[in-house]
């Protein structure tokens, strides 16, 4: 229990530090920081529905990063997995407008992309950071090509034909249904990681590859499955946008664009803990929703606000990034020590 409290305190200190950094930057630029924070708060309250729309896909792409991270892999491919998931869900909705089916197929499509990166890593030694970044672009342009050439709405040529109404998920008491799905995914993810043999294998692989291997854990399978699982969540992120929020895609894919990368930030903020991810995702979504009030009220450009989000993630996420890299650094140090020992 104690490490959790420690991390929580650490995160709160980090949040205070991030806010202080923002306040200082605001005042240095001649904006009144108190006024800025007031507007930000007002914006979060007023634009709560925008915040709720952003949070579900963000939670899922965070999971897409977090699960492989437990196995010591960096899945930068949440973005590409989300594009593929969104397109697959959309395509299925035209044929069989059932939301559950659409979400499942979307998740599967993302999972396949993650699986591919996992297999490339394990069987061919292609680093997953490189392969997932490449796959992001392949996914982006392929999905765009298909959207522009095959799914275009003749009346609004900048968007696809909408999801037929029976295939859509709506809202319950003002909260999009997909938010509940995303939270359920977090709990599921937690159970898999901490209550199932697969989770133990994944976590052991990440904690010490060599030790896990010698203990008889199939580390290669654990790595591949962790990428598959991450891909499933990434694909689901794209699917929930299409099935539960926008009901279409635009030709620039702007409703999905960036959600995978924001997810990495949210996951780092939550120390990759599946149960903390909803809160970190909510924080980042709140910054965007509240940011609209800052744009309108103080004339601060949207790009500047994105930088602030980056600063918050950076300040808050630095320790968890360090934690993530620690085993690798230790291994490096160990290897160096061993080499020195061997030479003597």
């Amino acid at each position, binding site marked *: 229990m104690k490490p959790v409290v420690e991390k929580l305190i650490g995160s709160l200190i980090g949040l205070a530090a991030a806010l202080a950094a923002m306040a200082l930057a605001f005042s240095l630029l001649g904006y009144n920081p108190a006024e800025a924070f007031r507007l930000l708060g007002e914006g979060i309250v007023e634009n709560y529905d925008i915040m709720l*729309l*952003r949070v579900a896909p963000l939670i899922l792409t965070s999971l897409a990063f977090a699960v492989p991270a437990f196995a010591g892999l960096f899945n930068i491919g949440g973005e590409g997995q989300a594009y593929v998931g969104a397109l697959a869900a959309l395509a299925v909705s035209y044929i069989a407008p059932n939301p559950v089916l659409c979400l499942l197929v979307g998740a599967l499509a993302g999972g396949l992309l993650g699986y591919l990166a996992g297999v490339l890593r394990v069987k061919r030694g292609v680093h997953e950071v490189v392969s997932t970044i490449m796959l992001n672009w392949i996914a982006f342009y392929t999905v*765009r090509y298909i959207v522009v050439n095959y799914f275009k709405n003749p009346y609004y040529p900048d968007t696809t034909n909408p999801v037929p109404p029976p295939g859509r998920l709506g809202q319950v008491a003002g909260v999009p249904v997909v938010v509940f799905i995303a939270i359920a995914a977090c709990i599921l993810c937690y159970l898999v990681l901490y209550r199932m043999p697969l989770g133990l294998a994944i976590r052991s692989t990440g904690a010490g590859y060599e030790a896990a291997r010698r203990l008889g854990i199939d580390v290669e399978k654990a790595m591949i499955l962790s990428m598959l699982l991450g891909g499933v969540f990434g694909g689901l992120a794209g699917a929930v946008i299409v099935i539960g929020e926008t009901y279409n895609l635009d030709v620039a894919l702007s409703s999905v664009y960036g959600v995978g990368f924001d997810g990495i930030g949210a996951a780092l903020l939550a120390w990759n803990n599946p149960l903390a991810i909803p809160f970190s995702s909510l924080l980042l979504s709140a910054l965007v929703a509240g940011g609209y009030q800052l744009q*309108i009220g103080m004339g601060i450009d949207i790009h500047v606000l994105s930088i602030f989000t980056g600063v918050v993630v950076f300040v808050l996420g630095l*320790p968890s990034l360090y934690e993530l890299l620690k085993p690798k650094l230790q291994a490096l140090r160990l290897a160096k020590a061993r080499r020195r020992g061997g030479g003597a």
Partner: protein
Amino acid sequence: MEGRTAALFIIGLVIGIIIGFFAVHAAVKPAAPTTITKTVTVTSTVTGTVTKTETAAAPKPSKKIHVLVLFDVGGRGDLSFNDMAWLGAERAAKELGVDVSFATPRSTADMVPLLERLSKSGKYDLIVLIGFLWTSPVEKVAPKYPQQKYALIDSATRKPLPNVACYVFREQELAALVGVIAADMAHNLGGDKVGAVAGMDIPPLWRFHIGYLFGVKYYEKMTGNKTSVLWVYTGTFTDPAKGKEAAMALIRQGARVLYGLAGATHLGMFEAVKEVSEHGHLVLAIGEDASQEWIDPYHIPISGMKRVDNAVFRAIEDVVKGTFKGGIHSLGLKEGGLGLSTLKMVKWFAELAAKQGKLPKGLTPDKVVKIVEEMRKKYIDKEAWNLVHKLEQEIISGKIRFKTPMTHKEYDQIIAALKKGDLNAALVKPMQTS
């Protein structure tokens, strides 16, 4: 361990402050008050001549009017569409004394809830929506808030709504004039093909295509010089690399004049034209939306101008005067919504570029104007200008009125007929043969 974490926090904090400060400083600077006033004074001097009568007639508002401008996804900084809209709003703020605020949506998913919230607040006398992507959100939200006035720029709702004023451009009219000029320049360069690098396959671009092809075929009919048009959709408005590729392909197929219709994408087209020309095969380019001659005056002798700024200004002015009317407002050559770049415009945009430090080395605004003037003299014949003026007059007087295709099929049919030389296929009523 704990000490290390704390140290990391502090390092993070310091780096965060530094990055945050410099990033914000750099990003906010262009919008700093001093720059704004400079830009606006220049705007009013030039655009003032175009819409002089209107600005003079504008009465002083009795109470402060609040206008909110919502940009396209992507927002300011594109040096054409969104920035022109911003210029129009800033001019309205200065000349009409209205309060203007701005916001840019992060994604299309945010558009409906954001518009809904802002409409509900009732704080704004007018919400100006920039660009095509706002069409379906405003169709969903506007009927729920009949008191709220909206202006939709460069797009129209499918059904006219009483509280939404849609400003669309009759791009065909401008592109027809450009087509005549392009065809003439191609023949003066010894070629018989002109090309265009277009953005996405969407209605405004359909209209450009129809006009451009019409202009070229009109030239062919009047002069007897056979000319064909090569048209490419790149599918993007933001990818200069793709624009360059497309331009290279067109040049290889024999196009001697290229018309850029793809926002930032056709900046790559300018590059391709420059490169090929410097290797001895002279190709010329035509800019669009703003006057873009200053980018490379040796190879860009003329631009088509889509005055998004005038549309935004007009929308705000109508609210100030109390003459706001929902439905479609169509802007063309007659209303000052479109036009070929005059030397005065060339100079003004070159001055603007010089102020922002973007003018290429070795050029001054006056030099740009001089080069452009010489290029025009050399590559555009008097007869072509006469044709342009004649066509312009016929368009303004209403003798020539273009069809506006509503579906892709209709657009394809018009293009197919035009390619065969059937000019009337693009017109509402046939031309009188002279």
